[in-house]
Structures are given as C-alpha cells and as structure tokens.
C-alpha cells in the first residue's frame, strides 16, 4: 500500500508531504526523482533504489506516491488522479499558490481520503460534507473572526449507507435533473489526407437535485452505436445487460453517469487541407480550413495549433481570418473562431529553414480544436428519463455538445 504522498511544484520543490504508514519515506526521494533525466522521470511507474514511485502530473503539480511493496500500480495512479480531481474541485483549479495557500485543507482532505495507505473516503459528495470547501463566506469569516472551522462535526449520512454517493435525505423545493451528453471527437487524418481513425468519446453528465431517494431510468434510442462503456458505481449492471437501460439512484449534484466510445465514424465536421512545398531553404505553407459535413449547428472556437519543426529558424505566417500567434517555443496557434460564410479561412506564409538545409524532411502535425453546442456527433440519442416516483415540480432537461479531442491532421 502507499506509504507517502508528496506534492511537488513545477520547480521540483516539495510543497507537502503526507506520511501514510509507519514506514516513513524521507523527502530526499523527491530530490532523487527530480534529478532523473526527463525520459525516465516522465514514466508513471518508477523503480527507484529504495521505493517504487507512482506519479501523475496535473497542471504543473506532480503528485508523487511511494510504496515499497507489491500493489496494483493502477490503483495508486487512479487514486492520485482522484486526489487531483478533488483538489482542483475544492481549490477551483490547481497551481502552486493554490496548494500552498490552502495547505490545511489539502492535509485534511488527504487524511480523509486515505488511511494507512488504503483509500478511505473518495466520494466527492461525502468529502464535501466532511470538509467544507473554501468559499468567500468562510474566507471572510476567518478574516473577521479569525476562526472558521471547515471540519464537520458529524459524519455525513452517506458515508455509511449502501449508496455512499448519496446523502440520505436531501430536500429540495424544486426538483431538477439535467442530462448532458458531452462528446469529444478523436480523429487522425494522415499525410495523404485520408481519415484513418475517427471516433467519439462521450460522457453522460448529470446534475440532479432531487428530494428523497429517487430511482431513475435512462434509455437511449440507439444504444447499439455504443462500442464500449464505463459506468458510475450507482448504475445497476443487470438492467443494462438485459435491456440496455441505465437504472440508478443518482448522487446529489453534478456527476458523470457513464462514459462511452463510438467508433468507426465516417466523417469529421471540418476539413483541414495543409500544403507545404519546400525548396532552397524556404517552405511555403498554406492551410485551408472548412466545413466538410454540416452538423446543423454552428461550429465554434475553431483553433489550429502545431509545433514548428526544430529546423525552422523563422516563420512568417498570416491568415485571411482569425489571428495567428507564434510562441517562443515554436508553437503556432491559429485561432479561427467561426467559419465565415463568405470565404474559406486560409493560413499562408513562409518558413525559413536553418542554413544548410535545402528541404524540410520532418513535418508537423496540426491539432484541431472546435466546439459544437447542441449536438452529439456520435449520433447517440437519449430516448427518455423516467423517475419511479415522480416528485412535485420536476424539471428535466437534456443538452448535448461536442468538442474536439485528439483531432490530428498530419501534414
């Protein structure tokens, strides 16, 4: 089991250490870790001379956990991910200052989340009841009175029930439940312009504020499109196995009900046509972006970013729509926004190669970003959401959106 958790800042400084068992881990292990060459340091599981290290990096913060004995490495990694999720939820983001400023909360959370190296309470809803997240009111209170405890005196009711994700008896004057389909499209277009892979990763996100102990059933119109899925622990397996129905007692508030994959899609909503010719030390680049198949809704926040190859010494790029920025680390971003109706956005310009190089032999990959509100590109449709006992004043809502995940266009 885990013996110790360290939080490291992006400069390698140990911000926090939490010893979990009697076998204390000296913080010198962090220095050792930080001094490793990058290729080794970026491994998620590292065998150091004294310990096995698990690490994840989230927003510049390295979460490092140590163990000396055999344990499922994924358990350590998943737990660290959970810690990072909870922390960024509590602190409203993650960075060095936030962690340092709220170190007491971090300690309290860690203490509650893990006991003797084994996860104890990781359900965000229960944690929120046990340790109040910092908010403006408590901050002001603590400034004025100098005292505001954020540790609850009582055990959350959910902690002991067989539905640990839900407080026993929440009461709302108006009952609301919203279902969001949030999809991410992953696609790869190879250098011949061929779509080699196009799939959608989606999540069914819900927000429920329902009185009592509601039992919900969600059904899809076309569950057969789903390639594979993963469920929140509240989903009962049986109804899904037999009828592809999602039957569950929802947690209170925001949660991710399920995630799914839809594979082998035929089309991306956008096309990106890059062209590059290089001769005698300069390259001419032109990239066209346009709508391939109209999804029926506006495609928003289209961006295109790519890393200029090392051998490019300078770049002069301009576009007929949107803005182009080139950062010092040779990352070039073209922010398009929406596609105008009257013209096709085009990025063009020249790249100067380093002296001595005639032609470009390595080519960048364009990462495409976009967002479409109101549509799920996978084609998955929600049929209906039923409540076993319908509470008074019930509002149900459905939404969908798609954004680009790993959408790579190779040049």
């Amino acid at each position, binding site marked *: 089991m885990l013996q110790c958790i360290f939080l490291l800042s992006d400069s390698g400084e140990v911000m926090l250490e939490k010893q979990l068992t009697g076998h204390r881990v000296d913080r010198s292990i962090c220095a050792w870790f930080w001094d490793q060459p990058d290729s080794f340091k970026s491994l998620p599981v590292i065998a150091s001379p004294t310990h096995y290290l698990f690490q994840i990096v989230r927003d510049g913060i390295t979460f490092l956990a140590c163990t000396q004995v055999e344990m499922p490495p994924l358990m350590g990694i998943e737990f660290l991910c959970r810690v990072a999720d909870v922390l960024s939820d509590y602190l409203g983001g993650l960075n060095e200052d936030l962690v340092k400023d709220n170190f007491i909360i971090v300690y309290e959370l860690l203490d509650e989340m893990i006991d*003797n190296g084994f996860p104890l309470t990781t359900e965000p809803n229960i944690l929120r009841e046990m340790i109040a997240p910092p908010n403006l009111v408590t*901050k002001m209170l603590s400034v004025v009175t100098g005292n505001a405890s954020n540790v609850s005196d009582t055990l959350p009711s959910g902690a*002991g029930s067989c539905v640990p994700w839900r407080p026993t008896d929440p009461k709302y004057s108006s009952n609301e439940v919203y279902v969001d389909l949030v999809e991410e499209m992953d696609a790869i277009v190879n250098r011949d312009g061929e779509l080699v892979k196009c799939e959608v990763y989606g999540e069914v996100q819900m927000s429920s504020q329902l009185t009592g102990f509601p039992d919900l059933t969600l059904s899809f119109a076309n569950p057969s499109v789903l390639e594979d899925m993963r469920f929140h622990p509240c989903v009962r397996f049986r109804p899904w196995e037999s009828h592809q129905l999602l039957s569950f007692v929802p947690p209170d508030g925001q949660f991710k009900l399920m995630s799914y994959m839809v594979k082998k899609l035929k089309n991306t909503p956008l096309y990106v046509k890059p062209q590059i010719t290089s001769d005698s030390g300069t390259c001419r680049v032109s990239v066209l972006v346009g709508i391939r198949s109209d999804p029926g809704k506006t495609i928003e926040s289209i961006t295109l970013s790519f890393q200029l190859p090392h051998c490019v010494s300078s770049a002069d790029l301009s576009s007929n729509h949107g803005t182009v920025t080139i950062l010092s680390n040779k990352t070039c971003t073209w922010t398009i926004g929406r596609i105008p109706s009257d013209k096709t956005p085009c990025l063009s310009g020249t790249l100067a190669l380093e002296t*001595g190089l005639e032609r470009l032999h390595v080519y960048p990959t364009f990462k495409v970003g976009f967002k479409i509100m109101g549509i799920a590109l996978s084609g998955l449709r929600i049929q209906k959401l039923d409540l076993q006992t319908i509470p008074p004043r019930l509002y149900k809502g459905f939404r969908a959106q798609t954004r680009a995940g790993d959408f790579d266009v190779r040049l």
Partner: protein
Amino acid sequence: MFNQFGSTAETLSKASAAVLRIGTDAHLYDDPEDVSIAPLLDSKFESEKCEALKRLLALIAQGFDVSNFFPQVVKNVASQSSEVKKLVYLYLLHYAEKRPNEALLSINYFQKDLGDPNPLVRAWALRTMAGIRLHVIAPLALAAVGKCARDPAVYVRKCAANALPKLHDLRLDEHAPAIEELVGILLNDHSPGVVGAAAAAFTSICPNNFELIGKNYKKLCQILPDVEEWGQILLIGTLLRYVVARHGLVRESLMLSLHGLESNGFYEKDGDKSDSFDANLVSLVSKCYIEGPDEYLSRSNCVDTVAASFDSKETTSVGDNEDVKILLQCTSPLLWSNNSAVVLAAAGVQWIMAPLEDVKKIVKPLLFLLRSSTASKYVVLCNILVFAKAVPSLFAPHFEDFFICSSDAYQVKAHKLEMLSLIATTSSISSILREFEDYIKDPDRIFAADTVAAIGLCAKRLPKIPTTCLNGLLALVRQESFAGDLESVEGEAGVLVQAVMSIQTIIERDPLSHEKVIIQLFRSLDSVKVAAARATIIWMVGVYCSLGHIIPRMLTTITKYLAWSFKSEASETKLQILNTAAKVLISAEVEDFQMLRRIVLYVFELGECDLNYDVRDRTRFLKKMLSYKLACHEPAEDSVASQESIAAQVVEHVFGRKLNPFSPLNLHNRFYLPGSLSQIVLHAAPGYEPLPKPCSFVFEEHDQLSDSDRQREARNDLNGSQESSETVDEDGSSEYDSESYNGSEFSSDGDERNDANDAADPLIQISDVAVSTDPEELRSKMALDLWLDEESSTSNQTPSALDRNQSSYAKISIGDVGSRVKPKSYTLLDPGNGSGLKIDYTFLSEVSTASPLHVCVEVLFQNSSKEPIVEVNLEDEEAMKVSDSAEQTLVGKANASYNNVPTLIPMEELSCLEPGQSAKRLIQVRFHHHLLPMRLNLHYNGKKVPVKLRPDLGYLVIPYSITVEEFLATESRLPGMFEYSRRCAFTDHVKDTRMENGKDKFLSICESITLKVLSNSNLHLVSVDLPVANTLEDATGLRLRFSSKILSSEIPLLISITVEGKCNEDLNLTVKINCEETVFGLNLLNRIANFMVETSSSAS
C-alpha cells in the same frame, strides 16, 4: 509599449492573487514561524490553538522537524473543537513513533473518545490510536479495534478494518491470531463498504488464509459489485487466488490450452493461423503466473520446458464448477467500472480463468482504458502488451486503436509501436505501414527511429511483406543520408542507424533472395556519413562476402574503397573495417587473393599506427591470427603445416561462423500477474505473490459453520438458562441499533444488552483480550467465598464458566516451593562480543534499599578468556548526558517524590577478574518504562561497551500479601475493562507427575505451576483452590491466585490461573489479571502467557 502593458498586467495579476489569498492559510505557509508557536498552543482560545497547529503543519509540510512541540500538542487532544482535534491527530500521527513516551499520554483521551456517541469522533480516535504504532499500546488498540468492528456505524467498522494492517505491521506475534479473527469477522460484514476495507486488510495481513475466504466465498462474490472501487480491486485478486488454490486452473481456459485450438473456433476468419496464437508463450505465461521467483530462478534459463505439467487433477472446468462460474459472472460486469484499476483486475481474472472463447470480452474494455489519463494509459499498455504477445489475434482487429496521436507521451508512443508490430496481420499490415510512413516524418526523431525498428519487426513477423518494407527502408536510407549531412539535427543519426539495422534484420532471414538489397546498401556507403550506420553496413560486407554471385565479384572494389577511406573513419567504423578485411581475406577466391592480400596488409599497416589503442590492438591481434594467410601466396594450398592448420581452424571458427538467429523470447521470458507492479517494473517487487499452487488449499466442509455459530451452539449446550431466543445474527443489523449502543463500553457499567452482544461475539471467547463488563460474572465472583458450602447456580460466560459444574472447593497448601524457585537469568554480554567476558543477570525478589522504584538485579561476571580482565564496571548511559527534561517530567508525573533518585545505583567496581573466575555484583535499577530496555555502559580493560538491560515485567511488581477475602474483595472492585484474560497451554507438570508416582497428582500440578510462576515473577501466592468433586484424573477447576503491587505506582495487581484438562495431559490455563493500570496489566498478562508455554528445565 508591450513591456509596459506586461508589467501592468503582472501587477494586476499579483494584486488579484493577493485578494484571492485573503482568508486562506497563505500567510501561515509563507511564514510559519513569524510568531512564537508555543504560547499559542497553550492558549485558552480554540482559534489560537488552531492557528498554532496550522503553523506546525506548515512546518511539517516544508520538511522541518517540529517534534519538540509534541508534549504541548498532545495536551490539546482533549479539545472539543473538531478542527483542533483533526489537526492534533494529523500532528500526532506524524511524530508518534519519534516520541513514544509522550504519545502514551494521549491514550486515555482516545479511550474516552472511543466511547463518544458521535461515530466520527470514534472513528478518528480509532484511526489515530492504531496509527501511532506503539508496541506498548498494541493490546489496547487491538481491544479497541475489536470493539469498533462491532460498532453500529459502518464508517467506524470500515476504519476498524483499516486499522488491522496497522496493528499487523507492528509484528506482534501474539496478536496475529486475534487480528486474523477480526479480519474474518469484518469480511463477513453485511455492509459492502466494510467488506472492501476488510479485503484490503486480508491482502496485507494473511493473503493465504483461504479458510477465511472459503467461509464467505459466495457472499463475497455477491457483494462484490457493491463494494467500493478500491476494495473491489483487491477483493477480485483475493477471490481469484482462492479459486485457484481451491479448484485449480480451468481446463478450457487460455492458460491450459496448448492444443486443439482450431476446434475452438477461436480464430474466426483471420487468415493465417500461425501467428494468432503462440502456444509456447502462453504456457510460459501461465507457468510464470504460478511459480514464484525462487522456482523461476532454479529453473534453468531455457525455454524448452514448454510441456506445462499440470496434473489433470489440478484442473477444473467452468461447466461443472460452481465457484469458478460465480467468479466469472461477478467479475465480468466490473469490466464496465469507472475505475481503470478495477477493469484491469477484472480483465486479469477473465484472462486467467475464462474459457478461451470468452477471453475476447476483455478486449474492448481494455481498449477503452486507453482513453484515460496518460499515466494509466501507460500501465494499461504494458499489460495489454503481455496479452498481445501471448495471443496477438485478440487485438489484431483493433489495430487502429494503437495508432499514435501527437499528444501521446513518448513511452506511450513506444508501447503503441511495439503493439502495432506485434499484432500486424497480412490484412492490416498495409494500413499499419502507411501509418509508419507518417511517423517517420514526425519531428520527434527518436520516435521516428523507433518506428523504423518497428518496421523491421513487422517485416520479420510477416514473411510476405519484406519487399515493400525494404524498398521503403532503402529509400529512407538514401533520404536520411542527405539529411544526415546536417549533424545539427538531433536524433537524425538514430533514424539512419535504425534503418540500416532494420534492413539487416529483414535480410538475415533470407539473405540470398535479398542480394540486390545488400548491394544497394553497399553502394550507398559513400553517402552514408553516420559512423554507426557505416559500421553496420561494413559489418554486413564481412558477413555476406561470399553470398551469391555478384557480391564476391564486387569485393575487391569495396575493400579498396574501405582501405582508401580508413584514415578518415571513426574508430568504431575502423574496427569493423578491420574485421571485414579479415573475413574477406579468409573467404577470398583464388583469382582475387593476391589483390586482397595486399589491400588487407595495407589496412593493417594503417591500423597499427592508429591513434586509438583499441584499433591498434585489434590490428595486431588480427595480423597475428591471419599471419599464415598473409604470408602465403595461394589461398587454398593443401600443404599447410600442422600448426598452420590449427590457426586456420581457429580463424575459421572465429570469423566463419553462421549467425545464430536471435529470438526475442529469451529477452523477456518472465511474466507477472496482470495488473501487478512487478509486471510494470519487470522484477518481482517485494511482497509479490504468484498465484497459489492449484488445489493447494483443501477446504473442510465443517468449517463452513461459522465460528460464531459454533460458539453459540456450544454455549446453548452448556447453559440451559440462556435460551437460544437471543437473536444474534452476524448479518442482521438489529444488534447494531443505536439504542443498544450507548457509548459507554469503556465505563464500568455496561448494560445487559451489550453484554449479550459481547458474549455472542466469538472474539471474546478466543482472543486474548476481554473488555466485557459482565455483572453476572461479577456477582459470581462476589459469591466465591460462599462456594465452599453453596452450589453456584449463576451462569458464567467467560472461560471461567467451566467451573460451573463443580460443586465445592478445597483449599490446599503447597509445601515450601521457595527453595526450588530458580529465577531465570538473562545474558547481558555474550563472551563473543566481550572478548571473553560473559555477563548474565538475574532479577531478585528482594526489595531495593534505595527507593521503592528500584529493582535489584544480580549481575554475574564470568571471565572465560585466558587473560585477566580489569576494572569492570557498569554505568548508566544517561547519567553522562544532560538529562532530557521532557522525559524527566513524564516519569516524574507518576512519582514526583522519587524524581531525584538516579536510575542506576551502581555496583562496586570489579578491580580484576582472573581467567575462569566469576563474581557476583548487585545493582539496583529504576526502569523508565516497563518495556523499554535501559542502556548501560560497560567498562572493562579501559574499553566502553554499550549494553542493554531489558526489564522483566515479572519483577517490576512486588509481592502483596493479602488474604483470600481481601483478594476477592479487590477483584470485585476491578471488573470490566480492568480485567483481561488469556489462555495458554501448560506442559511442565507432565514430566513431573510421571516421575514422582507417590505424590498426589494435583499437588504436583499446583507445585509445578507455582514454581513456574514464581521463577519468572515476583508474586505472592494467595491461595490454591481445588474442586472437591473432581475425579482423580481431572484437574479442571484448579485455581491459583497470586497477588502483587506494581512497583512504580503501588497499584494492586491480581492474577488468577484456572486450570482445565486431565492431570496426565497438557493443561489449558486461563490466566486472568485484574489491575487498574491497563497497559501494564495487559503486557504482564502476555508475559505470563508466554512463559507458561515455555518448557523450562527448572521444572524437572
């Protein structure tokens, strides 16, 4: 202008950050020490205490040692504020091990909190108490865990389960059975949350105690989907291990499927069967899963042990084994879990246990895991790789999932490439190669080089595609050699080298048909500038110099070229040129021989004056070896002298050998269980356990009757008055309702209902700690003095209940055993360590003259060396140092009046000890703590040696002479948590009774017990009671009472020993201690139980 704006933006963001930081603990983290912390800790305001504690935590977070505040912090454990409490606990847990003495001070508060009506407070107290990890309080903590394991609140029970590994970690052997018992109870809990934590405890405490699982197997399987994700991970593994140990592997599973695959329809439509299933590898994998590292090492390192020797008796089948079927059923929905670790664990079970045709269903869930975080992705890929190595066809249709996207981390990319080259089939290879072409143009050149290597692997696996691959690679070599002109491009050289090596791997399968490719490579020598690539090509010239028809004809030209370029080459290349020259010369045809000989001689001459000494050495070596060739003028002269023929043979052997095809299997022929850490780091991590041996666990049916049931039955038999109407059911929650739980278990008066619960629990009967408060028992004790003339009709529930059947008692008196008491001696110094000086010590029962706190110890010095030893003395180590104030205050708290007494009253110095001589000295010692040894310095011959004087608990008490009546009265005042009992075996009397036939058997039993007790501790024998109604052989009911006072505090301590069993056989003793000082009492109890079991020579 931008600068200006930038600076404004910076100040703005600073300002906004400052606003955001208001009300947070930022100032505490930044300057934790800007105020003095100590007075804040003593403040009467909770908020100030809170601030002080936060400052301390900030210091801990920054890596400072603030353990010196420990005493002040511990005081605050009594605070009512939950925040202060939480912070104190955080601090305590961090430092408890460093400051054990002070940590003990907090125990009472934990005890109090454990009785709090608020479950959160109870849980915190339990977590902290178990977490401070002191051996001294382990018995108390165990008792607390036992209590909390039956708490009405799930959360508390869960914490109890988590506390068990903490106690187990202390490695106290005497508690091990009790801990395992508790694991069993918690595994049987009806709440999934508790079961999950119990599964974790099981894995770390007793992973091979399958009996515990066997009892609840079906229930555990049913509850599995409801268990929390973290518990699921470990529970899945536990269930798998149990099933393998109980039933063995599944006959239809992949692990045992060496033959008959075609009939299974496993291949589907996939064209070539040859590569869809590597039977050797699969059997190797299954072998690795089962055998531990020792067996692996002992097995010879060859792979030919393919025939897996699984006895058919050790296998089972899904069809007719219910347990296997349930396991597969309950784990397969977990493939949909949200937690990657659960999915992988469930996939592992299916992989090992599922019938061959069902293994397919793990593929999609595993592929879905590739959409999770980078770190998880990497671990999952490592595991998928093993699966794919064994059964490539499993993942072959899903090759698109392993296409690389630009955001992947380098390691993930590398693994995906390996995966692609593993699963490529004739139908998918064209798409995969097209992808590879793209990757080669990637700006990350290391990745591009890996891709080139992967192409080589693909071509090697699929014999039909090499031509396409080779053409591509050759084009690449040509192109790269242009780009290679520019050395500035990092990693560029790697791609070229890799390309040449890949070509070489492809060619080596069938060199003859690739003759043209080889020639093309040779031709490109001129343009290839990278030394490593050149070296490889030149090496190929040597290897393939006699291949086909065209190459031998080119040889002279190539060799000439090499000789010409020798001067300008890197030394790496030079070495290869020398080798090649040698090989070329050996295989030279007659017509070219003279020419070649001259070129080679030229090369050797150049080599001999090279700057690099490796090159010079190699040249001289080759020159010497080939001297016979270089000297002669015709290549194949038959009239070579005999010594020359030997040289020729050696040369032939060194240079002319065929290449051995190199099998990648040999590289990684070690596999670990899927999902394990060992599989990722590729060595057995400490604590890694392979699957248990198939069918190694034999399940006894009658064990299925759970302990508590048996207990209840036994009690009902014994006890007619207590009807079985009592509803005690381990999975009914009725007994846990809040009404019955009044939170006062640790106070002296528990109510009836609680007692019933306590008694119903098997824990009390078997474990060595009993904290039950039992008024009924109490009553019976008070009536004890009337027992001589009145039959006891009360029902007892403690082990002493056994004497219920006896009607009357006789007191017996034992003759003078004092003369036979032989105190035990301990070794202080081994003659081996003390250069011949041997020191033993014995605790004396005499009362110290210095103070009541001192113990007299007789020290026996013996000189077993040949030289006299002079100036022997023992001194207190502490006396030299400045005494630690904190420790003084702690000790002083209990007995302030003796504070100024030194801890060691020294002995008279031994001026000289002749060889063979021995001398006794008396020292008086005051121990700081009843378990901690005292450090002394031994001086002799002018040397100083540190030694440790260990306290014997039995002598930290003094005899307390009281009458039986007083004894009973005192005992009745110390019920409940002041009473603890333990059972142990006793065998000393057996020898004794048989030897002295004339003596009364009971008397001799009493004598041997008394002797044993008095030889090991300083007690007063109060009385010996003998049940009158006993038959001659039955010693059951015999009871001995001893009394004493604790040396340091003068608190009375009562010991009763009750005997059970036949006179001539081993006896079972129940030792009971009543004492207010719980920690001391429990430790003494353990000590007594331990020495009673020891067979000592003193009894004979």
